[in-house]
């Protein structure tokens, strides 16, 4: 019964947290730019407005389904990630599963954008996929490294192992190279600067989102809110010892997010090839060295 309640309310809770985190990010950036910034619940307004649009256009059925794949895939990921108090599904799929289902939203998005036949969209999706090749390889290598280190591929067990070691059991402490590599990769994964060339509003008109309006964009924003939390949670679970209660969890989320946002706020934008090169030249060797430490 408890599980059923979790299943129903978890996405809603995560969605709310995600909305506020995105609002927080806008506020945070505004303050750094010495602006007042929007209210923290601004993202919620945006989503509401988008869902409330009177007309919507779509370029075909794949465009419609892609949006569903995007949100559906993210929800799927969400269930497999242990959060405090809920790890029911974590037993049915481990980190390798998470690794792969993280790619479903990307693929769904790519397919939908492809069907819009928008030149900017195609450019954006090509950049997004190339960036994926950039950051996913080091990120997954840290996955594999952590799995090897702890001889388990279950994320829940990973949390327990880290918690057992206290603060010094955290992945970031036990294997700092992997932790930092994953942190850089995470920045790319979230599409924060300097790795946001796939969106690049001034250049390719938000790229993949060019043809997305109304409820399509609304669903994308919902997905984004959830995905941010999901991706941060993965990092927390892998390297920051997970969380035992929701208070600790939210604190960790916000702290981690603030770190990433600070980077975001002060950086410009890497070109695609530079970004990929950076990802393959800095975090990837770091991760490789980290894994070598684990082996020997």
């Amino acid at each position: 019964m408890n599980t059923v309640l979790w299943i129903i309310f978890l996405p809603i809770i995560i969605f709310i947290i995600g909305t506020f985190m995105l609002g927080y990010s806008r506020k945070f950036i505004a303050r750094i730019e010495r602006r007042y910034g929007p209210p923290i619940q601004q993202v919620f307004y945006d989503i509401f407005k988008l869902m409330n649009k009177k007309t919507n256009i779509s370029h075909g059925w794949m465009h419609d389904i892609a949006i569903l794949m995007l949100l559906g895939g993210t929800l799927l990921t969400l269930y497999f990630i242990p959060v405090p108090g809920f790890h029911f599904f974590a037993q049915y799929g481990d980190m390798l599963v998470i690794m792969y289902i993280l790619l479903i939203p990307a693929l769904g998005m790519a397919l939908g954008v492809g069907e819009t036949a928008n030149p900017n969209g195609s450019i954006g999706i090509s950049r997004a996929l190339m960036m994926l090749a950039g950051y996913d390889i080091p990120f997954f290598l840290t996955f594999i490294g952590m799995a090897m280190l702890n001889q388990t591929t279950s994320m829940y067990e990973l949390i327990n192992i880290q918690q057992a070691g206290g603060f010094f059991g955290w992945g970031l402490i036990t294997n700092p190279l992997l932790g930092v590599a994953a942190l850089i990769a995470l920045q790319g994964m979230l599409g924060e600067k300097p790795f946001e060339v796939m969106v690049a509003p001034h250049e390719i008109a938000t790229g993949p989102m060019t043809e997305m309006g109304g409820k399509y964009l609304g669903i994308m924003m919902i997905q984004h809110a959830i995905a941010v939390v999901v991706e941060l949670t993965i990092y927390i679970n892998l390297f920051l010892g997970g969380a035992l209660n929701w208070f600790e969890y939210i604190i960790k989320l916000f702290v981690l997010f603030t770190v990433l946002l600070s980077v975001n706020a002060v950086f410009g934008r890497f070109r695609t090839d530079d970004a990929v090169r950076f990802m393959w030249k800095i975090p990837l060797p770091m991760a490789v060295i980290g894994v070598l430490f684990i082996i020997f």
Partner: protein
Amino acid sequence: MEEKLTQRSVWEKISNKLSKRSLWMLHYCTGCGAIELPPTMTARFDMERFGISPMVTPRQADILLITGYLSVKTLKRVVLTYEQMQAPKYVVGFGSCTINGGMYWNSYSTMKCLDQYIPVETYIAGCMPRPEAIIASFNDLIAKIDRGEANSWKDYYKNYDFYKANQDRTFEGPIETYNDIKADAAMFNIK
């Protein structure tokens, strides 16, 4: 006007209240007026605190901000862009040029009155208007949305023949935007 206000359902009232907090703006900057927008957006005036933020594609935008004069050539693009926006959508004419041609009133190639071609929600007078004026007019727009009165976009669907005739006369023939406005009106049930 009074009738319309009373006809709003509770849901519409709520949605208007919430929607007014988030207005995304596509600025069509062909004229000099665009120079006034950066101060409006940045630290000095910061229009994001009203939930107004710049967007780059018409699909996402709620407001189409026309800054400055329009020639025949650019007007075509404006019409296309306008038709690509998702309703509800609001056109804001920025500066004198959009009202009466401004300093170009005399030019053979400049459009004198924007609302002959697309329905305009608000004009911002001035050559050119200061950021304060922009903020003020946006606040007007927000208030209008709140009251449920910002319905000019429906005119385009209802009186499409009028707009189309004006457009065709100016463009000397129809332009192909691949938008069937009348079918849209029927499909989305816009009255």
